[in-house]
Structures are given as C-alpha cells and as structure tokens.
C-alpha cells in the first residue's frame, strides 16, 4: 500500500465511520426488533416495583421495609428499587422506547402521506403468480366487463385506477385479425385507514407520555383534615401537606373556602356477615368562591367535588374528640377539637393533646378513643362497633418538655416522649384517665382537670389540580380509537384484468394481496369473482 492511499484512508475513515456508525445505531434503534426488545424489557423492569414497596404509592411500607430489613434495604435503595418508576434505569428504557417509536413512525408518516396521494400501483403482468387469485370466463365484451368490475370495486370503497394496455402478441404480423391483444385492468386498493390508525395510535402514545410528564409538573396536590363545623381556605398555608409540581405557581390557587357542615356515615345493620361495614360516606359542605354566594355541595368517595379549578376528594375520615384542659383554678388553658387516627375497622383511634402553656409543666396526653367501647378478658378496652353508641376516651398523661421550642416541625399525631415523664398508665402507679362525653377528671399531681366535651367527625380531603389530565384522557382515547382502525381494517390491493376470450366472452383474472394480517383474502377474491359473474 502506498503512502498516499494510506493517508487517504486515515483522513476519510473517521468521518465516514462516525456518520456511518451513527446511521447504523439509528437504524438499530428504530428497528422493529429493538422496539420489541425494549417493550419486553419495560415489562420486566416494571415487575420489581410490585414486589418492593414504593415511596410514591406506599411510603409507610418503605419505612417498615427498612425497619424489617436493615441490611438489605439500603442496598435496594442504592439501585432505586423503592422508586422504580422514576428510577434512572426505568426512565432510560421508556425514553429509548419512545425515541425508537418516533424514529420509526416519522418516516412512515411521510411514506404514508405520499401513498395517500398517489394512485394504486400498476397491475402486475401475471396475476396468477399472486397467492390469492382466480380466473374465469364470462359472456360480454372486455369493455363492458371491466366497467362493471370497476363500479363494483368503487362501491366497495376501493380507490381505483384503470389501465388500458395493448400488448403486442408474439409475431403480431401473423395474426392479422388481432394484431394486438389488449388487456383492460383495474388496480384497486383499500384500507389506508389501517396505516393511518397505526400511525395515529403510536403518535397518541407519545401524546400520553408528554401529557403525563407535563401534568405532574404544572399542578399540585394538597391534603387537609377538617372536622364538622371547620372551614379551610384554598391557600398554601391552609394545607397540612402540599406537593407542588415543578412549575406550579402559588398565585394560581383559586381563593375559596370549603366548610364541612356535617359528615354522615351509614353502617350495615341487617346483614349478619357485614355488621358495622360502612355503606356510605357523605360529606356535606358549603363552598364559597371569594366574593360570591355560598353553595351547598356533597363529596363522596367515588364522587369528588370539582370546584374552583381543583378536584376535592374524600379520602379518609375519623373521630375528633373535643377536649378542654383547665388549671387548678379552673381557668381554661387548652380547648380544641383534635382529629384522632383510626387504627382498625371499628375505629379505635389514637391522638395526642399537647398543652404547652398555662400549667406548671408542659403536658402531653396520649389518647385512645373508642366509639363503642368494650373490655376484653384482660380488661383492655377495644371498640366493637364503628358508630357512636357508647363512646369513651382514655388518656395517658406525660409531663415535661414537649420539644416544641426547638424549631423542628412536630407531627400533631405523635408525642416525642424523650424529654417527658409518664404519670399514668402502664408502668406507673396511676391508672389511665377514662372519660365519657361531658365528664371531667382530675389530672395527676394536682395539675388541673381535663374535660371530654364531645366528639365530632373529621374528613381528610385531598385537593388536586392537574391541568394536563384532560389531555392524558384525550390521547388515551385517541390511541384506543385509532387502535381499532389499525387492527380491524384490512388493507389490501385487488386487481381485475380482462382480456377478450372470443367474440362474445371475456376472460377475467382477479388477484389480491394483503398488507399485514388478513386471512380472509381468498374469500374476498372468491366473493368478488362471484359478483362479477352475476353482474
């Protein structure tokens, strides 16, 4: 090899190589095979998220998993197994899949666009070579026969084009009567909507993906607990928890208030197999947009309230006892209605009362509420029915430092007892405090009194706004609709060619070709033949 040619290769190769390599890569990525493998990979990658609890769907499950498997959990966490569906590897698979999809579909759109505007292709010379074909003779001149066939195909929704060919017969000079043997044919095609549907289907999937991605970013989700008689305002501060999307703008919150007027629950009372099962939850609320008249509305489990640019869902409920604490002189130092968290189907509920000021010591009361109290063999209380038949509230009293002054946000549902001393209940000399509605009992050590004034129902509302949700639905339905076209509309080409058989009859050849799966092709050819013979 000469110097020169070697120099040439070194100059030319890398350029060609890079472009070539890229083209090769792109061709691989947008091939059917890759699409298939990525689809299967996506299915497999989705599995672990159903085996391991996910932070997004079940955060408590994740906490519990860490507690139960202290060795394994961090390892799983390091490969994002608690966040499978937002993990780098899961995202990589579906993003590649969609890149592949776009790369695959775009050229097909152009191809299909051209096909839509061009005529069906020329009739092949030899129709009997096609797998589905038929040949027979009918009376009539070729012109008349092809006219009928053409009309038939048009009526069946085919796009058609006529060809009129004169093929010189071999040694034409010899046959003086018919120096040319002419063939009249129709080339017909139908079912373009199959490909249109397929392209639209894939495009709609991209639409779903984009709308889903956008929706998560633009909206918000907030939670708020309110008890009967209480109202909340749709503003950032009013929410117990608030999860804004990346592009969420707080000024977009519609100013309104929602007041819980009453919360009604119906329980099964007849069916022995389901006594106490809730049959209906209805939250009766008053809604009011700023500056407008209040409106009555209902929120139920499967019937969210669509109001003020938000959707308000009834996701949980429970009891909120009203408690008053007084100092030894009888001055009220605390009065509130406190939502208790339900623990079981009979709504045994747990809650915390924190009294930071007004007494000699800070006070924490850990309460149990039983809507229908009963005592087991051991004397421990439990609730035997979820409705308020014989309610009771018990408290264990702690004194000491509530830890509220350290600036650390504290859960209203939990008491940090690390700086506190237990005064009643197990491991102390005194029994827990027990109160029926309206009762007042003395706190230990002469700290004061506590009164159980009554109990209200509370509801836990989720307030959502997802401006892209309607687009997700639109694209999902579009994909379903176009899928029907893509799968059930047969795409096929049909050719009918007619030549003169003798003075008063013609020979008809029919052939058909399907694109995609079409097992009925032979039947279609036979039917068409039948129609032409009868016409």
């Amino acid at each position: 090899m000469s110097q020169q040619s070697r120099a040439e290769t070194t100059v030319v190769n890398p350029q060609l190589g890079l472009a070539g390599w890229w083209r090769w890569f792109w061709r691989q990525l947008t091939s059917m095979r890759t699409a298939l493998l990525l689809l299967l990979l996506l299915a497999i990658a989705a599995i672990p998220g159903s085996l391991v609890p996910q932070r997004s769907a079940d955060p408590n499950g994740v906490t519990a998993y860490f507690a139960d498997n202290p060795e394994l959990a961090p390892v799983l966490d390091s490969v994002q197994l608690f966040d499978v569906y937002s993990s780098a590897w899961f995202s990589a698979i579906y993003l590649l899949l969609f890149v592949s999809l776009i790369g695959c579909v775009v050229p097909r759109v152009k191809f299909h666009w051209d096909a839509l505007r061009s005529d069906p292709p020329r009739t092949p010379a030899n129709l009997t070579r096609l797998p589905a074909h038929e040949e027979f003779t009918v009376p009539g001149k070729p012109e008349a026969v092809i006219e009928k066939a053409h009309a038939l195909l048009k009526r069946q929704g085919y796009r058609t084009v006529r060809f009129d060919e004169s093929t010189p017969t071999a040694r034409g000079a010899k046959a003086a009567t018919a120096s040319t043997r002419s063939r009249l044919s129709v080339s017909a095609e139908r079912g373009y909507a199959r490909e249109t549907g397929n392209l639209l289907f894939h495009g709609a999937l991209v639409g779903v993906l984009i709308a889903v991605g956008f929706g998560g970013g633009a909206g918000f989700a907030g939670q708020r607990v309110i008890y009967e008689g209480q109202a909340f305002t749709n503003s950032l501060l009013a929410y117990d928890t608030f999860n804004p999307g990346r592009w969420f703008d707080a000024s977009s919150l519609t100013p309104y208030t929602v007041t819980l007027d009453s919360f009604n629950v119906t329980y099964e009372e007849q069916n022995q197999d389901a006594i106490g099962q809730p049959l209906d939850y209805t939250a009766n609320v008053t809604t009011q947009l700023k500056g407008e008249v209040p409106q009555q509305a209902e929120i139920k489990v499967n019937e969210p309230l669509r109001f003020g640019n938000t959707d308000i869902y009834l996701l949980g409920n429970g009891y909120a006892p009203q408690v008053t604490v007084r100092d030894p002189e009888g001055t009220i130092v605390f009065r509130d209605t406190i939502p208790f968290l339900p623990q079981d189907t009979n709504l045994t509920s747990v809650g915390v009362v924190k009294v930071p000021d007004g007494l000699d010591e800070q006070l924490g009361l850990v309460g149990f509420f039983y809507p229908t109290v009963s005592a087991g063999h051991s004397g421990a209380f439990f609730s035997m029915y979820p409705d308020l038949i014989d309610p009771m509230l018990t408290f264990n009293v702690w004194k000491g430092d509530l830890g509220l002054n350290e600036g650390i946000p504290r859960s209203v549902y939990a008491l940090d007892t690390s700086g506190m001393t237990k005064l009643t209940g197990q491991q102390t000399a005194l029994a827990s405090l027990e109160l029926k509605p309206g009762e007042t009992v003395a706190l230990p050590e002469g700290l004061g009194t506590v009164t159980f004034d009554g109990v209200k129902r509370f509801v836990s509302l989720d307030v959502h706004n997802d401006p892209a949700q309607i687009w997700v639905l639109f694209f999902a339905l579009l994909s379903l609709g176009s899928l029907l076209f893509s799968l059930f509309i047969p795409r096929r080409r049909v050719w009918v060619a007619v030549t003169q058989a003798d003075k008063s009859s013609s020979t008809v050849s029919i052939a058909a070709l399907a694109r995609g799966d079409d097992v009925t092709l032979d039947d279609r050819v036979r039917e068409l033949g039948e129609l032409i013979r009868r016409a």
Partner: protein
Amino acid sequence: MTDSLSQFSVLALYSSMAVYAIAFILYTLDLAGIGPARFKLVRIGLSLTWLGFVLQSVATVLRGVAAGRVPWANMYEFAMTGTLMIVLVYLLVNLKWDLKFLGSFVTGLVVLLLGMSATRFYVEVVPLPPALQSYWLVIHVFVASLATGFFALGFALSLAQVLQERRERAVSAAVAKRWAWLSRFPESATLENYAYRLIVVGFVLWTFTLIAGAIWAERAWGRYWGWDVKEVWTFIIWTIYAGYLHARSTRGWRGTRSAVLAMIGFASVLFNFTVVNIFFKGLHAYSGLK
C-alpha cells in the same frame, strides 16, 4: 331471601362444575382417540359445555340478585364471572370456527378455577364498600373479565401452535410419530391465525380496561395512575401483548416466539388474578378474603 338466593346460586354453580367435568372427560377421551365414533364425543362435550354455561349463568345471576349489585366485587365473584366469560368466548367462537379441540383445555381450566374459588375464596354476600360503589366497577371489571376470556383461548391456541409446529417438523423429518392427538388439530399456521385474531380482540378490551381503570382511579383515589401493584400488573400484561403484536411483524419472531409471548401474557393474567390479589399489598384490596 338473600340467603336462599345465594344458596341456590352455589347449588347451580356446583351443578355447572359437575357438567363441565363430564364434558372435560368426553373431550379428553376424544383427544386420546378412545371411545366409539370419536366425533360424537366432542359434540356431546360441546352440548354439555352449553348446559354448564347456562347453569353457571344462573349461578352468577342469582348471586348478583342476592347481592343487589353486579356479581363481580370479590375474588369468589371475579372467578365466577371470569370463567363464565372464558366459556362464553369459547362457545361463541365455536359458532364461527370449529375449535372443539380446545374443549378439554377450556372445561379443565374452568373446573379447576371454579373449584379453587368455591373452596378457597368463598365469601358470603356482603354490601359494597363505598370505594367500590361506582358504575366503573360494572364497566371496568366486566371488560377485564371479557378480555381474560379472549386471552385464555389465545393461550390455548398458541400452546397448540407450538406443539403442532414441533410435530410438523418431526413428521416432515419422518421421525417417529409423536403426539398423535395433535393430528386432530388444524395445522400450526391456522392455529396461529386463530390465536392472533382472538388475542387482538383481547388486547383492545385490555386497553379499554386500562383506560377505564385509570378514569376510575382518578375518581376514587384522586389520581389516575399511581403504580399501585394492580396497576403495575395491568400495565405489564398490556406491554407483553403489545410485544406479542410487534413480534408478529418482526422477522424471526413470528411463529413459536410470538406464541410464547402470548402464553406468557396469559400466565401473567392468571398471576395478576391469583397471586397479586391474594398476596400483594395495595389499594385494590378487594379479594373479600380476611
């Protein structure tokens, strides 16, 4: 009243299982080439399947009447309605194509599932909890059950296709005759075609199920998609069947490989119904089992 209705329902269900079991024996004897005039056995088998279907329909309707709602709100009822759909699809398709050779599979599977359901999943009629009180329960679960019917037959046909293909290869290589019972099945290409045409219908229904489920989830839980375990498996199944459809247009994947995907798809459907419902924790805790 409710009690006696649901007892009649159980009675009708057990009767249908007995009838299916006899049909299963006849279908299987026919496949094994035992008995007089073979073709008559399958005919009787088919008639018995119709009878079993009528009995099971009575059982299902009575259960619904006893409960005062659609009879698909817990595992026991899902199994009852789901298997009814499998039989329905089998019977309807038989009006068009002769698929009696699948009788053994269909009746066998249905007896097995119903037996498991009646002994392990049975629960008394209880009212719907608020979370299930929605017309989406009617639509979403029914369409899912119907899709299951199509996927089940698609599974059987794909399995038959794979076996038939091996047999055809053995026959053309003049290897010893194996699996003589398969000689009563259509050739593998025909089986593949049937399988495809049923699975495509199942796929459309499943796509609808997925979308309807998301719409319902939005109403009931405040979000249309949250990767709850049941949602995950619905998605996995959908993706596997999308893979199946692609496989059929991918060179080297038509035939056995795509058939295997169809079989994995239905295995996932069964997994979703049994293991996921019973053992996986999630929002869809509607098995009714304690």
